[in-house]
């Protein structure tokens, strides 16, 4: 993913519900109780970058004498991560019913990236199948939007302005633009609302496909 990748850092900031498996002194500040130890079975939300290490690293607690630790079955990590809300049953059901109209952004703006990490960690085949199915369905929709916005307008300049107004990074009231075509506006409304539901990965896919359609169109129509 890249050490310096901003999106990766944001993904790792996602919070995961965790349960501590031991009493651990000094970590009270994690649950806003500074100075006190954390009791076993305490449940709290921890950021992924912290949680995924603590959930994997062996705490060597079966025997306090760490030299006696022999087989992996007896290794007990510090915490136990439970499925984050983004991958809960509720969400997976929603994905199965209607992948395209799902508001992925509000579930988790870094849904796919977190799913990748999670599946990598727990080899969760079920989740990975669901997520890849989700991506394929939504990718077709993204492609439709990317393509149709590009051909709506033969005027290359307005494509630029539509792009900038449809730019996901903009606020919600950017639908009125220089083009007075009614058809365009309704379509733009529909596409803007869909675009708002995309997560970060999908946004990149949309951006690249839109720009490539735009470029091909421009190249086809330049008649010099």
């Amino acid at each position, binding site marked *: 993913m890249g050490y*310096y990748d901003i999106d990766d850092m944001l993904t790792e900031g996602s919070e995961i519900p965790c349960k501590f498996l031991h009493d651990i002194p000094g970590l009270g500040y994690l649950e806003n109780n500074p100075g006190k130890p954390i009791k076993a079975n305490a449940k709290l939300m921890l950021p992924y970058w912290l949680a995924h290490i603590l959930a994997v690293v062996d705490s060597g607690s079966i025997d306090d004498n760490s030299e006696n630790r022999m087989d992996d079955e007896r290794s007990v990590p510090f915490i136990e991560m439970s499925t984050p809300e983004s991958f809960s049953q509720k969400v997976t059901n929603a994905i199965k019913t209607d992948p395209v109209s799902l508001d992925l952004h509000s579930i988790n703006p870094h849904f796919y990236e977190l799913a990748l990490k999670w599946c990598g960690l727990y080899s969760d085949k079920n989740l990975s199948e669901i997520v890849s199915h989700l991506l394929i369905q939504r990718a077709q929709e993204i492609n439709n939007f990317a393509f149709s916005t590009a051909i709506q307008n033969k005027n290359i300049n307005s494509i630029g302005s539509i792009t900038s107004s449809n730019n996901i990074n903009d606020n919600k009231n950017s639908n009125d633009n220089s083009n007075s075509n009614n058809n365009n506006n309704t379509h733009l409304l529909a596409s803007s609302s869909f675009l708002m539901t995309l997560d970060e990965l999908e946004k990149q896919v949309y951006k690249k496909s839109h720009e490539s359609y735009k470029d091909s169109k421009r190249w086809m129509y330049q008649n010099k």
Partner: protein
Amino acid sequence: MYGDLANKLVIEAKRTAQLNNRGNKTTLPVHNDELVRDIIKEVTQLKRNIEFFKEQEETMNENGEYANSRIMKCQHFVNALCLERNKRCLLGYQKLRSDMLDSLAWENNGMDMLGTVSSEENSNLTHHEQEYLKKYSELLTDMKSGELTDIDLSGSLTPPREIFIDVRVLKDAGEIQTEYGVFNLIKDSQFFVRQSDVERLIQQGFLQKI
């Protein structure tokens, strides 16, 4: 909670990247000195914590108390992880900005870098960043004047279409010397010139291609 400030910094980095993707010209927002300083303070705190834990473990070992259990070391471990996270976020933010500085240098090279940038965007770059920009621009100038002079490394990255183009002057800019003679750049006048000569001027916004 340790790492929260770092999260804020990363979100700001993301916003900077998004803002930058919109425009054509690289614009670097103000460096968030305050946030970075706060994170550094947190880092120093974490450093002190870790040193404290180390000493604690050493004394426990000396006293024969068994301090090797990982449970005891967990807080030390968590502190180290927080440090790593802070390091990564700080570096990510700085790297993003330095990448933008690099683009600035490539876009503006040929123009008086320091003059314009340091006066307009003086407040946006830290002292170290300004120094970096200066050194990088010098590096670029050296690169371009080596054996690759002919090909003008910072020239246009779109394929050339016509050799000669019509351009309109956008701002008054005095006299420009080309091999075909001297052109007097007065606002709204038009010229038919060789593209490679005026490319730099178009980049800088003095001319507009028609």
